[in-house]
Structures are given as C-alpha cells and as structure tokens.
C-alpha cells in the first residue's frame, strides 16, 4: 500500500494497517508524537483503530522538549 507520509510517498507492507503499527514499523517514539490522517488529528487512543488504506495522507509530528 502506498501512503503519503509528511509529503513523501512511501510503500508500506499490507500488514501495517493502522497508525499504531505504522509508527512501530518506522521506530518512532510514540509518547512524543502526534499523528494526522487525511487532515484530522487522531489521538493516540485511536491509533489502534485508525485503519490505513492505499492513498492515505499522514502527517507525523514528533515533538522535542523545551519551552
């Protein structure tokens, strides 16, 4: 399946079918990351149920501390 992640097209294996699995597969630090799927911010509680399909657009935002 082909996704657009932060503006770049990426081929992702079919088993990676939700946001939670996608972040695992990309080794992204989940506790400091927010995700947007097709224009909507998806809270972490919904990452397991947020199914991914071919053509989806994702924005993955990993924050760093300091303020």
């Amino acid at each position: 399946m082909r996704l657009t992640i932060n503006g770049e097209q990426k081929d992702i294996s079919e088993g990676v079918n939700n946001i939670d699995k996608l972040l695992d597969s990309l080794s992204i630090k989940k506790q400091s990351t927010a995700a947007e799927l097709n224009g909507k911010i998806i809270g972490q509680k919904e990452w397991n149920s947020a199914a991914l399909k071919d053509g989806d657009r994702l924005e993955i935002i990993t924050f760093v501390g300091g303020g």
Partner: protein
Amino acid sequence: MSAFEEGIKKYFSDEQLVKIRRTKIGIAGCGGLGSNISAALVRCGFADFEIIDHDVVEASNLNRQNYFLDDIGMSKTEATAKRLISINPDLSISAKKLFLDQNNIAAQFKDRDIVFEALDSAEAKKLFLETFGNTKKLVIMGSGMSGISNEKPIAVRTARENVYIVGDEESDISSGLPPLAPRVIACAAMMAGVALEKVLS
C-alpha cells in the same frame, strides 16, 4: 487610552489595530516561550489574554524568561500579568494557576481565537495538539529551541491549515542542551509573529 496605545498608532492603521485588539489569545505555559511570546504580543497591540501556568519564578529562570529579580517566588502567571500591564495597562488578562493535564486541558481556552503551546515537555506538546488541533482555533506551537548552535535554524512549519510549529524540531532539552536566551527568545518572537501575520492577513 494609554500612552502605549497612542504610540502604537505610528505603526498600524486603525483598521489593523481593531483586528489585533479583538483577537482573543490563550497561552499555555509562562516559561521561556510563554513569558516572551506574551510580551511580544502586547508590544504588537494584542490586548486580550488568558494565560495558564502552575509554576513560580525561580532564579534559574532569569537566564531566558521575561522576569526580573523581584519576581522570584511569585507565580509566573501573576508575574507575567504584572509585566504585561507595565507595557500597556489597557489589557484584559485572565491568569490561571493550573498544571495542564489530560483531565483539564480540553476545558481551557474555550473562547480563544489563537492558542499558543508554550509547555515544557514533548508529551504535553503532543497533548496540546491532540486537544486543539481539530478545532477552528489557530494553534501555534514551539518545538526545538534549546542549545547554542544555530546550525539548525528556528523555522516556521505549517503542519496543517491551522497548526504552525516553530523551532528546529530537533534540539531537545531532555538530551542535555540548555535552554538559553538567544534561541528561546527567537522562537517565542517568531511564534508571536505568526499570530500577527495571520490576524492581519
């Protein structure tokens, strides 16, 4: 009308000042970012604020935060309100001493047009975006402004239509980089600049 409001007329038209003054600002956190964002916004003519922080001013804050020796020990919201009013007394400021967490954050900033994320931890920044990202508010966030190196510049990124992230998105305070005045204040000033640009566009 205060002397400040007379003075600022030199730089903005009446129409622009109306737009600026009627904008309702919310700021989560009054540390290095929040104390400096709020001062920059007041200097741009913004006049309606809700500020939230749980902390008190400590000596170690004075290296970058917009506080002074006689503020030490005072709550940051109270000290910020005092400093902002000393620039322009014609302000509406609601100051709330509160530690924002997942149980109380959604109830905040209900009537605010623009909300600033000026919190310490990456986890709190994430919570802020998950809470306000899908609203119609303009969300302005800071991520990556620690250390002394300018190799990675502080930049403004549009993460989605209403969400702007300011910083280098890499320099992490938890990796040991100290928070210092030049980059923290630069980041805060650019965050205020995003608000001004959007309000006047």
